[in-house]
C-alpha cells in the first residue's frame, strides 16, 4: 500500500534572476478527459544543464515532459504557462512546428524510420526546406559525431537504420534531434530499452551534449539521475514534490516522500 503523503508539503526550488533559464512552466495542469494527471507544475530549467525528472510510474513525469513541446496537443488538455524566450508557448496561436524544431524530443523506445541512417537524419532537415546536399551531409556528420555514433556508422550511412542495435538506434534518434540544432532536448526514459553498456554510451553522449543544449530527461533509474543530472525534480501522483540540485536531493531530501523514494523505502 502506498502511504498517504500530503501534497501540501512540497519543496520546489526557484532560481535567482541572474541564472539563465531555457524553459519555465507556471501552474501547468494536464487533464486526460476528467483525469487530472498533472497539478500545478512550477519548474524552471537552467540553460546548459541536465535536469532529471524522477518518480514512480504514473507520477506524471512523461505527461509533463510531453507537454513541453506540445506533443500532448491531441491527447490531453494542457493549461498554464510555458515560458520559452519570454513567450508563452502554450497558446493556440503559437506555431507548434516551430516549437518542436527548437525543443527536440527523444522517446523511450528507439523509433528510427524504416529508412537509411542518412535519410533518418535529413528527413526533418528536408522538411524545413534545406536542399543543399553539402549542408545536409555536413549536418549528418556533425549530428552523428555529436551523438557519438559517427565512428560506428560512417561507412554504412546508406544502410537501413533498423539494422542497428538498440543503443545505436537510440543514439541515432538523438542525432536526428540535434541535427535540427534545437535549444532544448527532451528525453523520455531514453535508456529503459537499452542494455547497461549502451546506457553508459548514451549517458556519456548526454554529458557531452549539455555544453550545447539544455537537457531534460525523464528516468526511472535513480542512479542514472545521480550520475548525469545537475538538477532533479521528484514527481509523485501528478504533483511535483521536490525540486533541488541533484546532490542535495539525494543526500538531504527536504520532505519525507522524497526521502522514502530515494532511499528505496517508498510505499
Amino acid at each position, binding site marked *: 500500500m502506498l502511504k498517504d503523503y500530503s501534497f501540501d508539503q512540497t519543496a520546489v526550488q526557484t532560481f535567482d534572476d541572474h541564472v539563465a533559464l531555457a524553459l519555465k512552466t507556471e501552474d501547468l495542469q494536464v487533464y486526460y478527459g476528467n483525469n487530472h494527471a498533472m497539478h500545478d507544475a512550477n519548474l524552471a530549467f537552467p540553460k546548459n544543464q541536465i535536469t532529471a525528472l524522477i518518480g514512480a510510474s504514473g507520477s506524471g513525469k512523461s505527461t509533463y515532459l510531453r507537454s513541453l513541446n506540445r506533443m500532448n496537443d491531441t491527447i490531453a488538455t494542457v493549461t498554464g504557462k510555458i515560458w520559452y524566450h519570454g513567450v508563452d508557448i502554450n497558446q493556440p496561436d503559437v506555431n507548434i512546428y516551430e516549437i518542436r524544431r527548437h525543443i*527536440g524530443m527523444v522517446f523511450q523506445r528507439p523509433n528510427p*524510420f524504416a529508412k537509411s541512417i542518412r535519410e533518418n537524419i535529413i528527413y526533418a532537415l528536408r522538411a524545413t526546406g534545406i536542399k543543399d546536399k553539402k549542408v545536409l551531409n555536413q549536418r549528418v556528420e556533425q549530428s552523428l559525431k555529436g551523438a557519438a555514433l559517427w565512428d560506428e556508422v560512417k561507412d554504412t550511412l546508406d544502410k537501413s537504420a533498423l539494422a542497428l542495435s538498440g543503443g545505436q538506434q537510440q543514439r541515432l534518434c538523438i542525432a536526428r534531434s540535434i541535427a535540427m540544432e534545437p535549444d532544448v532536448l527532451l528525453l523520455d526514459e531514453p535508456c529503459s530499452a537499452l542494455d547497461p553498456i549502451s546506457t553508459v554510451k548514451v549517458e556519456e553522449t548526454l554529458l557531452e551534449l549539455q555544453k550545447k543544449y539544455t537537457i531534460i530527461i525523464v528516468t526511472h533509474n535513480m542512479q542514472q539521475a545521480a550520475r548525469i543530472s545537475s538538477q532533479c525534480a521528484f514527481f509523485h501522483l501528478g504533483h511535483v514534490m521536490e525540486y533541488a540540485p541533484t546532490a542535495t536531493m539525494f543526500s538531504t531530501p527536504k520532505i519525507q516522500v522524497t526521502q522514502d523514494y530515494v532511499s528505496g523505502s517508498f510505499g
Partner: protein
Amino acid sequence: MEQTSSGFKQEDTQPKDWAQQLHHATRATREDWFGRGISYLCIGVIILVVASMLWFITSKGIATFTHNHVNVGQFLTGTNWAPDQGKTGALPMIIGSFAVTFAAAIVATPFAVGTAIFMTEIAPKRGRKVLQPVIELLVGIPSVVYGFIGLAVVVPFMRHLVGGSGFGIISATFVLFVMVLPTITTMTVDSLRAVPRFYKEASLALGATRWQTVSRVILRAATPGILTAIIFGMARAFGEALAVQMVIGNAAIMPKNLISPASTLTSQLTTGIGDTIDGTLPNNALWSLALILLLMSLFFNALVRIIAKRGQLSHER
C-alpha cells in the same frame, strides 16, 4: 519411491506400471485426435474442390487448342471474335478487360487514399463511427444493383454528354470505379492504421508538419498495404461480370475509343454461355476465356504475396 518424497500422497500401495500409465490414451489425447481429424477432413474437401475446379477449367479451356486445333497465339492476338464461324480472336475482350480494370483503379485510387487519410488521420472519430459503416455497406451492395444504376443513370448521362449509345468502356469504368472504391478504401484504412504510432510521433517531434508526416512517413510506410489494396480492387474489377455487362454494350470488336460498345472477358462469358452447345468450338472458346480469367486472378494473388513479403522486409527491426 521417488514420487512420495516429492510430497505426493500415494493412494495406491501397489507399485504402478509407469510405462503403461504414461503411454495409454486418455480423453485429452482422444480429443486432440478428433479435432485434428475434423480439420484435416475440412481442408481435404476444400483442396479437392479447388483442385477439381482448376482441373475442370483448365481441361475445358485448353480443348480449344488441343481439340479444335486453334493456335494459341492467334487466340490471344486475333481481333475477330465469331466462334460460330470459327473465328476466335480474343484480343478485343482481353483489351476490354484490362482497359476497364486499369482505368477504374487509376480513377479510384486517389479518391480511396484521400478518403482513407481523412478517416485515419484527419477525423479518426468520425471516420470510425460514420464513414467506416457507410463504406462497408457499399462493399455489400450486390453488383446487379450497381449495374442497374449504371444502366439507368450513367449510360444515359454519357449518351447526353458525348453522344452515341452511351454504352462503352467509360461507362463500365465509372461503374467499376464506384464498385472498387470501397474495397481499396477499407484496405488502405487498415494499412494506414497498421503504421506504428511511433513513426508519427517521431516525425512530429522533429517539427515536421502534419502533412509532411502523412505524405512522407505514414503513406511511405503503408505503401505495400496500399498497393495490395489496389491490386485487390483490380482483381475485383477484372472479375466483375454482371455490372460491366449491363453498361459496356457487349460488342466483341476492338475498342477504338472509350465511348463505343466494347466487351470484356467476363461480359462475353455471361452473354455467350447460354447460347452454345457443350463440346463445340463456340463453347470451348468461352472456356478458354474463363481460363484466361483464372490465370489472371492467380497472377493478382501472386502479386499480392510478393508485395506483402517485400513489405515485411522493410519493417523488420
